């Protein structure tokens, strides 16, 4: 690999670090968009089969070209800006919805050393980036100058702020037991422990000792990405499509891409923080990116499964679950984990 890169590097000279970073970014974003496209197909197929339907099967073999057809259709549509809309912010909204979802991938490790920025405060960076995702939705909701869109924006603000706190506390537990904010270190610390010594690595991953936090993180992740059963932000039976109601064509597609990129991001984070990232579950199989991909796919499947299974939560129930159930539970568990680490029963010596 190095012998191949060397001559290209000398060609660009001083600009090489910039070019190399750009190449790495393209190397992540292009497959990510492909994954997003096929996640939409997977969603329609999975939910179709769960509801005893076939799902899309007309475009290409088995309907495999359906996402491409959808994308082309959205590209060719006109973007209509409503007459009373705040034009600048109306355009900025979808951009802000997608931007953070892509920026977060810069610190996500795909395998040992496969990461764009191996920063020390990676987990904090992720928390910060995911917390600014809500701006896209709020700005879009306000700038559209429509009551449905505005209601969607307000709901999104309240919901995301509420679930972020529970998510943050769940992450505090993770970083307490791995004593690092670096995502690669967090994965590495899950490879040690009694389970790993027996050859059953999956027993020493974080999901087992932190099982309640794993569940809280997963559910908060679904709420953060505004997916069913927490999709009151879009809630088509109540407020049509929420913040997206005035958007058409590519502007709408950006929201769509942002939502699915976020789903993949949350799945990747859950896999890295609780399911051992790229580590193999048993010692006789090698570690590698394949495991991370499998774990991400499993969590994404859960997302789709939940959507097909649960009816939408009522708004006050969502708020109650966030503030009155998850936050006290996670606060309590932070104390429990702190005592556990200091006690002789600690698993993380």
């Amino acid at each position, binding site marked *: 690999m190095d012998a191949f890169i060397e001559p290209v590097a000398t060609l660009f000279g001083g600009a090489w670090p910039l070019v190399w970073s750009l190449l790495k970014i393209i190397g992540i974003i292009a497959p990510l968009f492909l994954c997003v496209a096929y996640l939409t197909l997977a969603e329609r197929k999975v939910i179709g089969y769960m509801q005893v339907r076939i799902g899309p099967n007309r475009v290409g073999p088995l309907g495999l070209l359906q996402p491409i057809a959808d994308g082309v259709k959205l590209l060719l549509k006109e973007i209509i800006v409503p007459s009373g809309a705040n034009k600048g*912010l109306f355009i900025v909204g979808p951009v802000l919805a997608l931007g953070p979802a892509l920026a977060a991938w810069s610190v996500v490790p795909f395998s040992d050393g496969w990461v764009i920025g191996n920063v*020390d405060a990676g987990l904090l960076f992720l928390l910060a980036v995911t917390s600014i995702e809500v701006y896209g939705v709020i700005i879009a909701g306000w700038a559209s100058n429509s009551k449905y869109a505005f209601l969607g924006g307000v709901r999104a603000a309240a919901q995301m702020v509420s679930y972020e706190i529970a998510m943050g506390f769940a992450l505090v537990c993770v970083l307490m037991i791995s004593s690092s904010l670096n995502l690669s270190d967090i994965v590495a610390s899950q490879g040690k422990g009694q389970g790993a010594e027996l050859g059953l690595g999956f027993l020493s991953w974080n999901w087992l000792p932190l099982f309640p936090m794993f569940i809280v993180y997963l559910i908060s992740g679904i709420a953060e990405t505004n997916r069913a059963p927490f999709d009151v932000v879009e809630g088509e039976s109540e407020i049509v499509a929420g913040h997206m109601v005035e958007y058409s064509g590519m502007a709408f597609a950006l929201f769509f891409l942002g939502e699915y990129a976020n789903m993949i991001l949350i799945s990747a984070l859950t896999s890295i923080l609780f399911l051992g990232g790229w580590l193999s579950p048993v010692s006789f199989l090698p570690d590698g990116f394949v495991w991370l991909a499998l774990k991400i796919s499993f969590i994404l499947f859960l997302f789709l499964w939940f959507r097909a299974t649960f009816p939408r939560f009522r708004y006050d129930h969502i708020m109650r679950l966030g503030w009155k159930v998850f936050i006290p539970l996670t606060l309590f568990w932070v104390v429990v984990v702190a005592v556990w680490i200091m006690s002789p029963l600690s698993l993380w010596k």
Partner: protein
Amino acid sequence: MDFQSIVFYFFSTVMVLASLRVITARNPVHAALFLVLAFFSAGGIWMLLHAEFLAIALVMVYVGAVMVLFLFVVMMLDINLERIRQGFWSYLPVGALIGVLMVVEMVMVLGGRYFGLDAMPKPAEVEQGYSNTKELGRLLYTEYVYPFELASIVLLVAMVAAVALTLRKRKNVKIIDPAEQVAVKRDDRVRIVSMRAEKE
């Protein structure tokens, strides 16, 4: 000019312009969004000082939570600019006085001997394996543990006070407690009556 200076001047320019727009923007939502931009640039400048924890915490707390709630409120306000402008000239002398006072104070603070280039040297180059977060945590929980705990208690009291001030229980509302709702049994709601069929 090296790369760091370019980045510094870029962030500073953006921050100063955004802060100016916060007070000159006519639309309160635009003003709030410019404030977000100002916070973001401040985070960038702190990052240049190797204070990565503080920089990210600034973005997380102020941009991610505080300003979202600000926007939340500001978006719902129906502000009539004409009415706000009505008393502009009568308030101007007082406002100008306060403004001048603040400028004088800032000059005294920033121009004094505590803020010169010699009082604030460039942060030392960090060695390999230095973690800003770890260092900050160590300082907070050893050297500054009493001020830190005191500050958190003050915040807690403020939080409890805010909740206590706004908490009001109305008697005659028909709100249903979700906890009761979840725990409901079939027998509480349905009564099965055995009844013979009636002929017309």
